[in-house]
């Protein structure tokens, strides 16, 4: 099936403003007749819930954490992009749009990306008005810094904790609406299914994580703001609780899943130390403003470093290869993430990696400290350096950091049209859980921008149009579809609880992660992917035979929660492999070894693959059906990305 993204016609720069005028409105007095369900309270969810409640809708918001403030948006470090051009360095809405489309390797929808760049300026205004303490210059104006994939300084930041400050801003707006009685907040509550009535999403089924109670909630529309699926790799920079369950269950109820193989491997993370490791920690991309990435020029020196016979500062300048500066002089250390990651892997593959495992390169601040002084470096990056010291017991003020790529973000997600509506009417997806704006690679400081754009400035308009067309008549929870969906959830929970095998769900998760990282990670081949598919299918069968889940449903039960999430990750893993197999080109974060340029860069095949792959669930253990949305480019010219 050919999908329609519903991008409005007309010139790029006028699309959104014209479309907003064309959308139907719900009049102020009628808004209180509509109930909206928002699942997830990160940047996208909290901003959407607050904004919709301000408009007058009744909102029910849900999160699995103990408080909406804990959502994983809180961990975003570096910053948020906006085309303010406060630095007078040539930025504009079009340039932010262009950088984002190019950074995404021409696999995103032009109309969506332009709108994102357009509303980016409003986001900064909104956040400042809420009291978000962005970094400032001595004159009292907002400060900016640079991020990868761009040659202007457009990133607003709050030390290394920008996500925290933005989320606390959205959380405060949400709190104001909770206090006003317009949002009812459900914490420690996990969404386990979507209720679909006559093809439209009309509610959800949840599990209370304190007492196991399974409940139904009805609404005129359901918004999923449930984040990404990076934890399919087991080790990632995501929080331990981050999971795909809400999105995956929605997928099984009819929502198409788009471009699942587009995953972002972030170049600067603290390397893995051993099998006990439960997560990886990011070192913000902002560090590449001042840090220089290098590896030793020869394998001999690398081996000495690996065996700790010498230290990094003893390697002579001539023996160091600042490989990003060498290969990409125009962008230097600030190339996009996918390019930086692949180059680090290349160094390790050639035997030039450092650290005990050889799976690391250096990020060196010696020059910056010499140029700016240790105090200035501390003021800019102090909290990141402290974090590094805690984890590694090494001092980055004295020795370069060891860094290596790690899974960080997923560009793929639920397919949505220009209205952020999934293929199930009434079911919307916002933030990282949709696929829409980043193509095959996301630029740094754009995730926060997208989450808040969707929640503050897009959904309040597009949702109104859907509601106005549907009318206020509500499907209540007595409809048989609610009882049926609830029963399906209960059956699924009971099936999990009955698993009394010998292998823990954590062990299954780790096994899945190994398969995904090895065969569907930074480099992918047809042969490897075929092998991975078989391994995942076997893992799934084994899981439902031999997994062990302790305790019962009617209590706090982390083992059960984890079990359900891992089961969904296993199914998603198989779809990711299918998607990666189908896409016989390289683009952005999806690198097929069979498709590269002479210089080893990702080689796209625009003739055959300039489309969004939207997968349709066809039943348990059935192959999914591929639907395509053709990507049309009017404003940009498709070319081989060049950062040299």
């Amino acid at each position, binding site marked *: 099936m050919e999908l329609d993204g519903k991008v409005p016609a007309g010139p790029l720069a006028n699309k959104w403003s014209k479309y907003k005028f064309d959308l139907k409105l719900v009049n102020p007095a009628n808004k209180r007749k509509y109930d909206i369900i928002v699942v997830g309270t990160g940047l996208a969810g909290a901003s959407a819930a607050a904004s919709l409640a301000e408009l007058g809708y009744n909102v029910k918001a849900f999160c699995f954490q*103990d408080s909406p403030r804990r959502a994983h948006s809180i961990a975003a470090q570096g910053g948020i992009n906006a085309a303010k051009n406060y630095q007078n360095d040539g930025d504009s809405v079009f340039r932010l749009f262009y950088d984002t489309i190019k950074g995404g390797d021409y696999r995103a929808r032009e109309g969506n990306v332009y709108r994102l760049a357009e509303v980016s300026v*409003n986001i900064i205004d909104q956040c400042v008005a809420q009291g978000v303490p962005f970094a400032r210059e001595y004159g009292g104006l907002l400060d900016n810094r640079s991020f990868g994939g761009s040659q202007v300084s457009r990133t607003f930041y709050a030390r290394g904790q920008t996500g925290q400050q933005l989320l606390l801003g959205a959380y405060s707006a949400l*709190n104001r609406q909770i206090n006003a009685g317009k949002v009812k907040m459900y914490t420690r509550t996990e969404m386990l299914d979507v209720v679909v009535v006559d093809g439209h999403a009309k509610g959800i089924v949840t599990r209370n994580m304190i007492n196991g109670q399974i409940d139904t909630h009805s609404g005129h529309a359901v918004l999923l703001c449930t984040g990404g699926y990076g934890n399919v790799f087991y080790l990632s920079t995501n929080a331990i609780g981050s999971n795909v369950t809400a999105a995956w269950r929605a997928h099984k109820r009819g929502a198409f899943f788009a471009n699942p193989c587009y995953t972002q491997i972030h170049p600067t993370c603290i390397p893995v130390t051993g099998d*006990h490791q439960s997560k990886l920690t990011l070192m913000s991309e902002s560090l590449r403003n001042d840090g220089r990435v290098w590896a030793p020029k020869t394998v001999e020196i690398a081996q000495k470093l690996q065996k700790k016979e010498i230290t990094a500062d003893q390697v002579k300048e001539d023996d160091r290869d600042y490989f990003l500066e060498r290969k990409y002089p125009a962008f230097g250390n600030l190339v996009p993430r996918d390019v930086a990651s692949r180059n680090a892997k290349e160094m390790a593959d050639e035997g030039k990696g450092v650290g005990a495992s050889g799976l690391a390169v250096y990020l060196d601040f010696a020059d910056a400290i010499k140029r700016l002084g240790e105090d200035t470096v501390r003021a800019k990056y102090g909290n990141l350096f402290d974090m590094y010291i805690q984890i590694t017991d090494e001092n980055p003020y004295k020795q370069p950091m060891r860094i290596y790529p790690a899974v960080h973000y997923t560009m793929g997600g639920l397919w949505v049209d220009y209205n952020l509506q999934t293929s199930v009417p009434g079911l919307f997806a916002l933030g990282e859980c949709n696929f829409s704006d980043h193509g095959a690679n996301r630029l740094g400081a754009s995730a926060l921008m997208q989450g808040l754009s969707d929640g503050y400035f897009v959904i309040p308009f597009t949702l109104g149009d859907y509601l106005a067309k549907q009318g206020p008549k509500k499907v209540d929870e007595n409809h048989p579809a609610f009882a049926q969906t609830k029963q399906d959830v209960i059956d699924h929970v009971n099936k999990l609880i009955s698993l009394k095998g010998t292998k823990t769900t954590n062990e299954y998760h780790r096994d899945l992660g190994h398969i995904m990282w090895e065969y569907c990670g930074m480099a992918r081949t047809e042969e490897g992917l075929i092998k991975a598919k078989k391994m995942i299918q076997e893992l799934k069968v084994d899981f439902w035979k031999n997994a062990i889940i302790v305790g019962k449903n009617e209590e706090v039960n982390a083992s059960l929660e984890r079990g359900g999430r891992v089961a969904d990750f296993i199914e998603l893993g198989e779809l990711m492999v299918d998607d990666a197999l189908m896409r016989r080109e390289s683009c952005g974060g999806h690198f097929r070894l069979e498709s590269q340029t002479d210089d080893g860069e990702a080689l796209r095949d625009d003739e055959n693959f300039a489309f969004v792959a939207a997968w349709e669930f066809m039943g348990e253990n059935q192959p999914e059906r591929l639907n395509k949305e053709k990507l049309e480019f009017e404003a940009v010219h498709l070319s081989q990305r060049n950062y040299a």
Partner: protein
Amino acid sequence: MKLTLKVWRQKDANSAGKMETYPADNISPDMSFLEMLDVVNESLIHKNIEPIHFDHDCREGICGMCSLYINGQPHGPKRAITTCQLHMRSFKDGDTITIEPWRAAAFPVIKDLAVDRSAFDRIQQAGGYISVNTGAAQDANNILIPKVIADEAFNSATCIGCGACVAACKNASAMLFVSAKITQLGLLPQGQPERYRRAQSMVAQMDEEGFGNCTNTGACEAECPKEISLTNISRMNNDFLSAKLFREEEIAHSGE
């Protein structure tokens, strides 16, 4: 490393709890404290014993979900970090480690080491915000904020809401937490219109939740993983008193 853990186990809020002892073998000094607990839990699950329940999420010291009273100190022995950032190299082979939940009447135990901190959310809901609707903001650079003020507001805003301040306090006072928000918004020009009303509402909710009073011991500041300073409490007291003495009328008339 080989360790012995003494852990508080409690089925739910209504059951009595008790300390249980578990061995923790094959522990690497590179593990975080929570990864050490993961290892112990995996071995418990293999024996079909319910794993030790604890709250955790981001595991990089920012979400505020993890807690744990370790050897009598919130977030363990090291200064200015959360439990998830504490690594086993801070302990010695053969150590016995005591692990308890936060203890405060306003933080009832949910299970084992996890407590209910929703009182914190309710305090924020009472007034921890600036009343501005989406879309109603002026250009961000129209508001000039001196760097020192912005930095100071930021320092208060780094509170992660973990509750270590309450757990550390002999009175289970939440004043450091509450004052951090009041200070952040009270320092900024955007926060001025609701400054005194905010202080009153948040303090009233704090009292209603059953947190104790402040007696200036400073344990909260010493144990805070984000080093929120006691100055915040002085600022809050100042705003609260000022509201009480001089602004009752103004506050009463500014109600929504």
